[in-house]
C-alpha cells in the first residue's frame, strides 16, 4: 500500500524504482539532451496538475548527471520563496544562492588563486544581498517590491563570476526550475520569468522550466513562442497504448497484488489518465476495503472512492463553470481559449487528450449530470 502513495516526493519514488521511465515517451531525455547540446537554450514543460511534471524534470536532472557535460541545478523556486507578488529577480536570486552553496559544498573553488577566491566570495556575498536584502534595500526573496531593471542587470555580473568558474571546469550550466506551473496564468508566469530568463540566456545558462498548462491556449500562445521548445505532457488516456501504460504505472507499484483486472480497468477509466488520480484511486480503494474489514477490494469500494474523487472536483464550481461542463458533456462544445475554459482545464475538471479532444474528468461527469 505504501507504494501507492500519490503524494510521495517524486525524488523518492524515482529512487525506489516506482516510476515508469518512458511513461511520456522519454520527454525527459529530449529536454536533457537539448539542454546539454545547446547552452543557453530555454525549454518549458507543461502538463496538468498531477501529470508527472516533477518526475520528468528530476529524470532530466538524473540523465544530465549521468550523460551530460553539465553542472546541473534543480530548483523548486516555490519552495524557496513566495512568488505571489510576481517579483522579477527571484529566479536569478535562487540560482545565485544555489550556485554559491554548490561552490562551498563541492569545493569548486579549489585550485583558485587567492584573487579568484576573493572575486567568487564577493560575488556570492552580493548575490546573498540581492536575495535577502541589505540593511536599507529589500531583497528579492522577501515580500515583493517593484522590480528594478538596474538591479537585475547588476546580478548578471555577479552570476557571471560564478558561472565563469564553472566553465573553467569545462562544464556548461543547466538550471531546472520547478514550481512555476503553479503561477496558473500565462501573464503571471511571464511577469516572474521574463527579465530573469533574458539574463540567463545572455549568460548561456540552459533553462528547463515547468510552466502552466494555460500557456498552450489563448493569450498564452505568444508567450510559449519565446521558448526554444515546449514539451507537453498530455493526459494518459486517448492515445494508443494508454490503457497498458496506465496498467504499467499501477503494476510498478504493486497494485495487481491488491486489485483484480476488472478493478484495475475501472480505476484506469475513472482516473481519466491523470497520473496522480490513478495512483490515489488504487490506494483509496485498498484503504476503503481495509476500513470495511473486507478480505478483498470489491466493486462497492471502487465506486465509493471514485465518487469521493468526483465530489472533490465538483465542489467549488460556480454556475458559469457548471454550464460549460454541461455543454461539453451534452454537445461536445468547449471554448478552450475562454477564461472559463482555461479555469476548468487548469483545475483538471476538463482534461485535454489532444488539441481538439477535451472531456470532463470521468469521475466528475456523472455528478454533473445529477446536479
Amino acid at each position, binding site marked *: 500500500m505504501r507504494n501507492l502513495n500519490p503524494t510521495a516526493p517524486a525524488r523518492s519514488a524515482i529512487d525506489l524504482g516506482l516510476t515508469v521511465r518512458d511513461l511520456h515517451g522519454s520527454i525527459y531525455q529530449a529536454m536533457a539532451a537539448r539542454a546539454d547540446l545547446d547552452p543557453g537554450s530555454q525549454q518549458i514543460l507543461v502538463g496538468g496538475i*498531477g501529470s508527472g511534471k516533477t518526475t520528468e524534470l528530476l529524470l532530466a536532472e538524473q540523465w544530465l548527471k549521468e550523460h551530460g557535460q553539465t553542472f546541473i541545478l534543480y530548483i523548486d523556486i516555490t*519552495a524557496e520563496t513566495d512568488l505571489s507578488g510576481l517579483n522579477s529577480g527571484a529566479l536569478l536570486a535562487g540560482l545565485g544562492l544555489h550556485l554559491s552553496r554548490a561552490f562551498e559544498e563541492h569545493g569548486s573553488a579549489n585550485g583558485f588563486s587567492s584573487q579568484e577566491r576573493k572575486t567568487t566570495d564577493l560575488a556570492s556575498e552580493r548575490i546573498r544581498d540581492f536575495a535577502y536584502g541589505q540593511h536599507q534595500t529589500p531583497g528579492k526573496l522577501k515580500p515583493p517590491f517593484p522590480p528594478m531593471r538596474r538591479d537585475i542587470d547588476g546580478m548578471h555580473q555577479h552570476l557571471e563570476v560564478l558561472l565563469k568558474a564553472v566553465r573553467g571546469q569545462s562544464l556548461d550550466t543547466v538550471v531546472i526550475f520547478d514550481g512555476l506551473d503553479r503561477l496558473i496564468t500565462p501573464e503571471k508566469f511571464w511577469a516572474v520569468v521574463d527579465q530573469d530568463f533574458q539574463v540567463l540566456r545572455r549568460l548561456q545558462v540552459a533553462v528547463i522550466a515547468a510552466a502552466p498548462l494555460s500557456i498552450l491556449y489563448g493569450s498564452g500562445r505568444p508567450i510559449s513562442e519565446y521558448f526554444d521548445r515546449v514539451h507537453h505532457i498530455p493526459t494518459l488516456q486517448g492515445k494508443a497504448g494508454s490503457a497498458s501504460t496506465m496498467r504499467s504505472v499501477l503494476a510498478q507499484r504493486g497494485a495487481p497484488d491488491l486489485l483484480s483486472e476488472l478493478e484495475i480497468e475501472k480505476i484506469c477509466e475513472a482516473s481519466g489518465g491523470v497520473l496522480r488520480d490513478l495512483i490515489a*484511486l488504487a490506494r483509496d480503494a485498498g484503504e476503503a476495503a481495509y476500513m470495511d474489514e473486507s478480505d478483498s477490494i470489491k466493486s462497492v469500494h471502487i465506486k465509493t472512492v471514485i465518487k469521493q474523487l468526483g465530489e472533490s472536483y465538483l*465542489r467549488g464550481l460556480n454556475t458559469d463553470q457548471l454550464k460549460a461542463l454541461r455543454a461539453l458533456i451534452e454537445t461536445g462544445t468547449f471554448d478552450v481559449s475562454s477564461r472559463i475554459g482555461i479555469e476548468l482545464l487548469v483545475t483538471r475538471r476538463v482534461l485535454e487528450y489532444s488539441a481538439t479532444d477535451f472531456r470532463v474528468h470521468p469521475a466528475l461527469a456523472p455528478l454533473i449530470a445529477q446536479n
Partner: protein
Amino acid sequence: MAEFISQAAFEIGRRLELRGLDAESWLIVIGPAEREPEALDTFLLELGATIDHPVRVIQIEDQSTSKISQTLREPAADTVILTGFGVFTPAIWREWDLGRSRLERPGAIILWLTSATLSEFCANAPNIRGFVGGSIFRLSQSGSAMTDSEISERIRELESHYQMSSDQMIERAAKGELSAEPQIAEWLILLGRGDLI
C-alpha cells in the same frame, strides 16, 4: 447518498496508520462551523489516542506560507491539524496553493474545514486539492459515525473476535496487558474509556 462519506476520528486515525504516519498524507475533515471548538478538541483527543503519535493543532488565521512552513517543520514528522481558515480570501488560498512546496512535510496534514471553506478551497487551491484528492471526510455530528445500536453491534463483534467481554478487556487494559491495536483503541473509545489507551 451523502456528498462525502462520514468518518469518526479513530477511523481517520486508522487511515493515517495504514498509509504510514510519515507518508506525507493530506486529508480534509469537514467539521462543524468553526464556532464549535469542542468538536475540534474531541477530534484531537480521539485521534491522538488512536494513532499513538504526536498530534497538534495549528491556528492559521492569516499567516503566510513562510511562517506556517517554519511551524510545520518544528517538528516535521508529527500529525498536524490546520484550522482557522474562515479568514481566508480567495487570494490567500491562491498564495497557499502557489507555495504548496513549502507546506510539504513527512507528517500528515489534516485541513479542518467547514462546508463553506471547503468550497473556497476547491475553487482556489487546485494544486493542494490535487494532493488531497478524494480524501475528504465529514465528521459526523456526534463525533462518531455510529448510532447507539451500531455501537452495541460493533462492541459485540469485538467481544466475539477477541473472545472476551468488554469488562474483561477493560480490566486487562487497565493492567497494561493489551497490545496497541487500532481495534482495541476503537473498543475503548466506544465504551467511553479512551483514558485507558
